[in-house]
């Protein structure tokens, strides 16, 4: 990758995974690396930057997707996707370098953990996955009066889609909505298919009558299971950081 040109430009894209893959396609084709990659809607214009808007092109993105799986391995695709969902700054640039180098060296790229961008991509994936796993447990559904289950979460990373897939596998015959309050998007599932929509398009009815009863029972269970001789709030907070407490039924 040493003969690649660094160009003094800022790429703007629409923030979607396919939009990002389009950038990868263009960079790989022209053998150039941009100075910065930013999302269109959050970018603040700056007179030093020359910006180029990259239109999302599904065909190009699909070619890159197939290319990654064929040439660098599905492991890398997995890394790329989860790293992309993280909320780290400059994630796009690191993943771009990781992929471009990956196309040159092949599956070996994942052994090069001492290269800074490979390590960053791998650790971003790790962070995203661990938050996703944590919320698989800490998410709480509430039964609404129209027999719908509703849950709200405040995650750091954009883990709504993998989280939703976990619950589809688990509650295949249940209608549910998971709402990411930090990003205002909702995962909606109606026992057949799912959609991710903006949360403005959703109105939430009141909770059902049974719900109150089971919430009380759960709080009671939570209180009862505590052994006072072993009190250890630090340990509790380590596993269950306070930022997640707002969505819990049982407030410790």
């Amino acid at each position: 990758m040493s003969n690649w040109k660094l160009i003094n430009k800022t790429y703007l894209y629409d923030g979607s995974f396919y939009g990002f893959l389009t950038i990868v396609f263009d960079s790989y084709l022209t053998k150039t690396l941009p100075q910065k990659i930013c999302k269109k809607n959050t970018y603040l214009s700056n007179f030093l930057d020359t910006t180029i808007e990259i239109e999302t092109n599904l065909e190009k993105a699909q070619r890159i997707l197939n290319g990654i799986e064929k040439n660098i391995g599905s492991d890398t695709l997995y890394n790329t996707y989860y790293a992309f969902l993280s909320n780290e700054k400059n994630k796009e640039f690191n993943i771009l370098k990781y992929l471009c180098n990956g196309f040159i060296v092949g599956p070996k790229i994942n052994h090069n953990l001492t290269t800074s961008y490979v390590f960053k991509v791998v650790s971003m994936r790790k962070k995203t996955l661990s938050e996703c796993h944590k919320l698989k447990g800490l998410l709480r559904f509430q039964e609404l009066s129209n027999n719908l289950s509703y849950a709200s979460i405040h995650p750091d990373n954009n883990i709504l889609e993998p989280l939703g897939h976990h619950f589809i596998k688990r509650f295949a015959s249940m209608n549910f909505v998971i709402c990411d309050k930090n990003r205002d998007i909702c995962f909606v599932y109606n026992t057949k298919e799912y959609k991710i929509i903006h949360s403005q398009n959703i109105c939430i009815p009141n909770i059902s009558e049974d719900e109150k009863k089971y919430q009380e029972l759960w709080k009671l269970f939570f209180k009862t299971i505590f052994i006072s001789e072993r009190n250890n709030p630090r340990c509790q907070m380590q596993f269950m950081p306070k930022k997640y407490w707002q969505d819990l039924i049982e407030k410790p």
Partner: protein
Amino acid sequence: MFDFFVFCDIISTNVWFVVKKMDIIDKLKILADSAKYDASCSSSGSSRKNKNRGIGNGNVSGICHSWSNDGRCISLLKILFSNCCIYDCKYCINRCTNTVRRATFTPREVADLTINFYKRNYIEGLFLSSAVIKSPNYTMELLIRTISILRNEYHFNGYIHCKTIPGCSKELIDPLGKLVDRMSVNIELPSHNSLKLLAPQKEKDGILTPMTYISNGIKQNKLDKSKFKIDFVPAGQTTQLIIGATPESDLKILKLSEGLYQKLNLKRVYYSAYISINNDKNLPTLKSPPLLRENRLYQADWLLRFYGFKADELLDDSHPNFNNILDPKCDWALRHIEQFPIEINTADYLTLLRIPGIGVISAKKIIRARRSFYLDFDSLKKLGVVLKRAKYFITCKGKYFDKICKFNESFIETNLIYQERNNLKQPQFEQLSIFDSLQPTKEDKIKCLTGSL
């Protein structure tokens, strides 16, 4: 059909009689309270699929759903089916001579509670245990009825962990094993003598026979290649030992665990620090549960299962108990200093695992990364290997981390103990001195400064 009444036993006379209908809130309170001393809570090892659009599935890695104020995770709805016990085990809160409120669920109540908690994602499944009502077999039948409602009527595919009642007959283990994911029989007391002393009605054979039977059942089931076979206890069996109620040494306990892992293929042995609940002449009175000892045993347990250590290596007759300051692996390494330092770039996997501070994940990372290039201390740091303890025991490209101090035992030991000092509780007393009364006062110091003394 089992009736909806609650039994209450009058103290010391085993007369059962009906009091009144108790509501679900009271029952949950009593029966969750009695179940909380069971340490086991994991929900891992089962990959049960969501079949027939039923509810739930298993997750191989297990999921924790909450953490209570004592820092223990809550992943299963941990309750007793009943706490009306006919046994009189000295350490147990539910022994028949204790005056505690008694309650019994009905199978339907347990099933409804589990389904409704599960639907709201509060729990990963059910952990059902029970005191012995009437007889071991009668209790087992009730447990089987409860779980078959969950599995067959509600099509619940989540995780179920069920206790086997010591002394029950083999014919009841088979149907239960086909319904649940994990089974366990609690040994509780690590030797025959302790068992006789503290749990006179339980027999060693009553505990070990069902364990052996389950273990053989699992082995047989794994050999069965049929497409239509029903899994038998797919997540394996576990047990629990109480630590600190009886005088056994750490070595004896660890030996027992090792035997259980090797002979009976147990998935886990849980250690539970003894908490003084009952007063009895045969029981010790402890101010606080021996949590550090419990922690050391868990550390050693991991060394047995994932690090290729043997109980004899970690402890021997001259050191029958673990070190209070250093963890078992550090302690072992300092006693076998002749095997160190280890060269990171050439050591094999099992040798890497023997380095204090390097675990399974770090060892695998090192092996993967050194295929591409030689590792030094900086690149180890970049890999995310924690060097706090490991740096004393390794060399990278033949170099030791400290250029001035050479590799020697006393240097390492002092440094390790110095690092751990924050975790140690300092005793709150001070050295007495005959010059105490002659200590300079504030005025003396001022006078000293101004030169007027």
